[in-house]
């Protein structure tokens, strides 16, 4: 900030006198203001000063400071005179302050602080197209600038989200459109070629939109799932026979995807295909136990018959847990448990549930009086 040193000099410009006035010294300029006419104000940048010298007071003369100046620069702001013969001005201190002023001015000349501190640009400097830009100094200015910055940020954020909300509107339209087309397909089953139908349905599936044509009733289902079901029947025949005619759906999923290598099946596709096995009269079927566990079993496989053999095994050993049973028979624990639970449901086994775990016993409640 500019600093002021008050004085009460007058400015002499050889032959042209301005008095009286107030002289102000700042870190950047020398400012003189007419005492009577406050509108009249002059300033010289300190950078224009070459050197200064004192002229002591004498009889009839007041103390003076002579300020020698550089030749005026071409972009000099308009002053009292366009040009002058002399390259100096005299500051005449009629009352007092010369010594102090001289000292201060010398200090400023030595320090040359105007070189370090950037001065606020004047209004005439062109700063680009910013119409209506508020320029202010002081705390009010800082506050106004902060406010502006905040508004700017706000605007940017809402602009960014504008795109997002536009996207959402578009997505909604897309969904409506695809639903509409899917309905049309449903109605005009014969008019559209099979190929297109399959393609379109697979697009829908990949977008995650439920295919309205897929139902869980007999005969319905996409071509894709039907083909897949047939494929599965082929793949799973041998593994099922190896595993005693029954496999959990998770085992099937792993097996099938490992075999395919690429173009992996999604769980949904697998389940939907398996649901069609029985309907398509294939040699396998999907079975869901009470607990929710899903298995694939050969049509020839009769789980109920297996229960009878399970009862024998349990009776031999007195009692068994699912894990023990699984180990004995060579089954996965999950399927072993399902078999024992089925046996319990059929009334062949009963359970003993304690801190020791869950054990199954032959159902003596029924067999013994």
């Amino acid at each position, binding site marked *: 900030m500019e600093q002021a040193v008050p004085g009460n000099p007058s400015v002499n410009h050889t032959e042209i006198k301005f008095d009286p006035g107030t002289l102000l010294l700042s870190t950047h300029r020398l400012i003189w203001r007419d005492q009577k006419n406050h509108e009249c104000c002059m300033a010289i940048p300190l950078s224009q000063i070459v050197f200064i010298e004192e002229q002591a007071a004498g009889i009839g003369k007041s103390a003076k400071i002579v300020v020698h100046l550089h030749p005026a620069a071409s972009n000099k702001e308009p002053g009292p005179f366009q040009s002058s013969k002399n390259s100096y001005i005299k500051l005449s201190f009629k009352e007092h302050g010369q010594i102090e002023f001289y000292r201060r001015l010398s200090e400023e000349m030595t320090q040359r602080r105007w070189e370090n501190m950037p001065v606020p640009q004047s209004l005439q400097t062109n700063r680009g197209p910013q119409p209506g830009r508020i320029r202010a100094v002081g705390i009010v200015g800082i506050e106004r600038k902060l406010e502006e910055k905040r508004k700017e940020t706000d605007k940017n954020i809402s602009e960014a989200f504008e795109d997002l909300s536009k996207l959402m509107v578009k997505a909604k339209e897309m969904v409506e459109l695809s639903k509409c087309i899917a309905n049309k397909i449903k109605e005009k089953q014969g008019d559209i070629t099979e190929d297109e139908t399959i393609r379109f349905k697979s697009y829908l599936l990949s977008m995650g939109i439920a295919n309205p044509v897929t139902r869980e009733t007999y005969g319905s289902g996409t071509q894709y799932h039907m083909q897949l079901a047939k494929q599965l029947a082929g793949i799973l025949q041998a593994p099922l026979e190896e595993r005693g005619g029954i496999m959990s759906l998770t085992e099937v999923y792993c097996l099938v995807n490992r075999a395919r290598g690429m173009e992996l099946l999604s769980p949904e596709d697998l389940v939907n295909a398996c649901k069609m096995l029985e309907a398509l009269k294939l040699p396998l079927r999907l079975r869901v136990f009470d607990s929710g566990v899903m298995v694939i079993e050969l049509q020839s496989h009769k789980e109920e018959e297996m229960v009878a053999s399970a009862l024998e095994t349990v009776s031999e050993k007195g009692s068994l847990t699912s894990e023990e049973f699984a180990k004995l028979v060579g089954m996965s624990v999950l399927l072993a448990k399902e078999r024992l639970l089925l046996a319990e449901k059929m*009334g062949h086994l*009963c359970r*003993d549930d304690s801190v020791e775990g869950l054990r199954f*016993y032959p*159902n*003596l*409640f*029924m067999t*013994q009086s």
Partner: protein
Amino acid sequence: MAMSFEWPWQYRFPPFFTLQPNVDTRQKQLAAWCSLVLSFCRLHKQSSMTVMEAQESPLFNNVKLQRKLPVESIQVVLEELRKKGNLEWLDKNKSSFLIMWRRPEEWGKLIYQWVSKSGQNNSVFTLYELTNGEDTEDEGNAFPSPPNFKKNFLAMPQGL
């Protein structure tokens, strides 16, 4: 005349202490529990009990087998007894109950039969005589203690 109590085979069968999920199996299980509770109480001449006592009693807690019937299942057994008429709750919280190993109607009939046999119709008896009299001992089972006995009278068939 305390007989040595003979536990039924179920008492040594671990699944007996787990409430069976299979409905048919459960029916058999509960029937076995009911008759066990009644014969146990009859032998030990216990006509009333709290649920807390029941939990720790050897009736529901087979220490040797390391199995005990959990309290929720005990409640199921007691409810079954109540439905059959062999149990009455003594308080609203269902914390203590009355066990009637012979239902009041059954007692009523027995008393009547005994009274007719000894030819003492139309005479007045005190309760004390009935419960402690020598004559009654022959009946094989002592009559239950006075609190219950009133009930038995109320349940007696008309005509006495």
